[in-house]
């Protein structure tokens, strides 16, 4: 085993081993647990940075372990996988810092951080998966690792949310397993390949391939929260704020959306999928989810629930970008994978800050809160405007490429969906900002904790401000060298015939 074959395994192990070690630490070992958490998060970023640097210099990183006869567990670094792996590793670091502050005096922290690390391991495995079987293995591992985090608080509501989550995701996983096996019987391989591996199959198999595609999308759509498979997501917001951030921005919904990208690009191939007529129904489904999620968000008074429905809507932009089936729209979808993650994690951090510092859970309790917590609400404002798609924030560029791609692909109706969605986004985010910045604050807050001269704990505030700054930087420096846009363009060029 040389460096090039070992590095993907090391990236995986950098969170797996510390995660397993954390399980054995008692509650009192705060320093050891915190050090392990932070060291592993930093080590992972360093290893991924090294892998990225090597890729730029022509190195090829692939680890292959025998899993079943004819089916290997493959971890491979490619442009698309690096996009997702960098996103998850980067956001994991800030979420870890946040979680350390958030759970400062909570019980069962070792259990929490153990599963937290395993979740990131599973996400990295999903990102680096070189075939559908590897993807499936880590996809299911992610389901099992996130369940304990959702039920972490142990309340009846949390357990109920956990049960719902399990039912949905195991159902999705079973569909994914079924369709993967079926696909294997037809194609004899599940290796992810640029422009897919199915276009050479006999035309008589096309109806079967369409059915398998529907099963794959249904299986992945559960985690991607595609309508009507999204029911678990708003319930899962009972979890602690770092878990919500993990579910909505780093791991779970992103794994579903990423899986759809993989299926469309590396299993079917975008051109073959379009020839089979699969992309238009997918685009319609994504559009329905975008509008439905936004409409549902409008009626929620609970802040995290509103954000959860917003995720239902926003994640479908990624699917829409892929389904519009043009290079420019695909760039829009891919950059939204990152943009949505950064923006949504900011919003969930802010929701967590409000809950932890002032006991605020509902929007109706947020009157004038910006004057009590200006940094948190400034970050929330940036995240919210990013979600609306206001320039020059990150979300604007996602919408720009989606709309531009829709015009290129002669699917003008998508622009109407984007316009409608932007109006709805504004309708459910701007009232929050109005209430927070322009209403008179109450005499007392529901459950205020004092942090001296600071508005809240530094461990909660710094990750929030950092992710808000990332939202701003991703927009302002959109065309800088080595930018996300450049990277997404490279990925797309591999997927489309020149």
């Amino acid at each position: 085993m040389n460096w090039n074959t070992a590095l993907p395994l090391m990236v995986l192990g950098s969170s797996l081993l510390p995660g397993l070690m954390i399980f054995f630490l008692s509650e009192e070992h705060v320093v050891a647990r915190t050090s392990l958490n932070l060291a592993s998060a930093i080590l992972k970023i360093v290893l991924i940075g090294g892998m990225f640097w090597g890729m730029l210099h022509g190195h090829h990183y692939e680890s292959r372990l025998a899993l079943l006869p004819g089916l290997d567990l493959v971890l491979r670094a490619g442009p698309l996988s690096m996009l997702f792996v960098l996103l998850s590793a980067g956001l994991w670091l800030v979420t870890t810092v946040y979680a350390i502050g958030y759970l400062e005096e909570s019980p069962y922290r070792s259990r929490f951080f153990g599963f937290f690390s395993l979740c990131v391991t599973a996400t990295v495995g999903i990102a680096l998966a070189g075939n559908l079987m590897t993807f499936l293995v880590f996809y299911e591992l992610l389901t099992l690792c996130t369940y304990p985090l959702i039920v972490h608080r142990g309340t009846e509501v949390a357990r109920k949310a956990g049960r719902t989550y399990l039912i949905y995701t195991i159902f999705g996983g079973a569909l994914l397993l079924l369709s993967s096996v079926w696909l294997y019987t037809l194609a004899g391989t599940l290796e992810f390949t640029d422009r897919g591996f199915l276009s050479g199959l006999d035309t008589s198999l096309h109806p079967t391939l369409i059915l398998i595609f529907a099963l794959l999308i249904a299986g992945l759509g559960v985690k991607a929260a595609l309508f009507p498979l999204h029911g678990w997501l708003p319930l899962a917001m009972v979890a602690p704020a770092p878990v919500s951030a993990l579910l909505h921005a780093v791991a779970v919904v992103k794994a579903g959306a990423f899986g759809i990208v993989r299926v469309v690009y590396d299993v079917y191939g975008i051109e073959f999928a379009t020839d089979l007529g699969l992309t238009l129904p997918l685009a319609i489904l994504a559009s329905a989810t975008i509008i439905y999620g936004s409409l549902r968000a409008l009626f929620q008074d609970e802040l995290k629930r509103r954000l959860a429905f917003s995720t239902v809507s926003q994640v479908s932009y990624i699917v829409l970008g892929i389904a519009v089936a043009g290079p420019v729209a695909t760039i829009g979808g891919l950059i939204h994978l990152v943009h949505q993650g950064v923006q949504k994690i900011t919003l969930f951090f802010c929701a967590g800050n409000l809950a932890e510092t002032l006991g605020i859970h509902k929007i109706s309790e947020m009157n004038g809160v910006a004057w009590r917590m200006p940094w948190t609400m400034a970050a929330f404002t940036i995240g919210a405007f990013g979600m609306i798609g206001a320039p020059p924030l990150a979300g604007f560029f996602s919408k720009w490429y989606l709309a531009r791609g829709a015009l290129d692909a002669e699917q003008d109706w998508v622009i109407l969906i984007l316009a409608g969605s932007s109006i709805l986004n504004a309708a459910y985010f701007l009232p929050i900002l109005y209430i927070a910045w322009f209403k008179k604050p109450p005499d007392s807050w529901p459950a205020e904790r004092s942090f001296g001269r600071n508005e809240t704990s530094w461990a909660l505030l710094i990750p929030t401000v950092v992710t808000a700054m990332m939202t701003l930087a991703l927009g302002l420096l959109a065309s800088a060298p080595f930018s996300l846009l450049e990277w997404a363009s490279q990925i797309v060029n591999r997927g489309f015939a020149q």
Partner: protein
Amino acid sequence: MNGIVSGFLLVSALGLPLLLAFPPLHRRLPWPVHIALLPAIALVFIPVDLCIELPWFLLGTGLGLDAGSRWWLAISVMMWGVIAIFLLPPNGRNVHHPLTSLFLLSLTGQMGAVLATDMVSFFALSTLMGYACIGLLLADADETIRRAGRIYLVLLILADIILFEAMVMAEAISEDLGFATLARVISLSNSLDLYLSIVLVGFAFKVGLWPLHIWLPLAYATARPATALMLWVGPVATGLLGVLRCLPLGEVSAPMPGGALLFLGAVTILYVIFFCFKRAQRRQQPAYFATIVTGSFVMGLGAGLSDPALWSGYGDLAPIFVFTMGLVLAIMIVSFEWSMAKGEISGANKVDRTLLESWFEAFVHWGRRAGIDTLPDFRALWLARRDGLRQKRIWQRAFDAGEYFLQRWSFALTLFLLLVIVTVVLLFLDAAAVL
């Protein structure tokens, strides 16, 4: 001129106000808005065209200053200077004003829009300005101004969405959103009429053209002079600059949109003169004056679109016109404030209705009476409306029920899951046999 110096001035004209918008920075400085204006003042007095490319910024952009935009910059600097004086409290050096950050963000956006050389950066910076202006309106204690802010917010969102579509369309046509080439390429496109319509509707929302101007008099009713001046130099004048930049004026003859603009401009002016101006409060009169200026400008644009030769001959006067009118408006607002402070005039100005207005109201009153008399159950209309509202609630309940059903459907899902697992096992066996 040295490229580094000009680049520094152009970037700092935006960067300095943006930096000073952070409260910890401007709290420590005397006259922060005036300090923020220094690079822009220097730019006004540099008599050469300047340009800097920023390929890494947004979608690849640049900042520049030519003869036309220098007039715009001059009026902006003058207006912001006066605004900053009104921001100062009477005791002089205690300079922190709670809304200074929002003023400085508005200034950044407005200056940036003037200096922008492409559509995306213009859009981005004018949006920053627009939302900061809304913040200023909503922060006001007066409910009328807050209402104006809410109305403007809705109009701004709609305007931004419409202009977003226009930009996407322009990029699809020209691949380059720089103002230098945009007009020429757009004028050759088959989609010219659609593009013109979208741009004009978008900017009509943005600048408050009749009949979308209602927020402006509301905002002026009790606005502080600083806010009143800012509303002119910000949303209105910058919107006019935007429409000037985005239209292919002098390049193409478009009689239909041109005629529509001429009509709309004329209607705006007549409406304001006959219906609004006389009965307006003194504080509102500058708002109506601004609306008349907008109407006149729109008529000029209409003439330019109808006859490109006319625009080629007189188009350069547009910035001078805006500069002059801005000056008049500033004098108007300052003199009103001065007179009111001295007690020579009051803010209110109750004037009898005009004849035309009385006729119109009588007509509406007669129509209402006729309707209720002939249809005693006219109130059914209200009931129907209420039903409509109830329908919304039914929809909401339907959504809730749907999700509840999906969440409770665990038994059926589990059965289905078992079925799936059995199928998978069978398929595995089958696959093993085949392979």
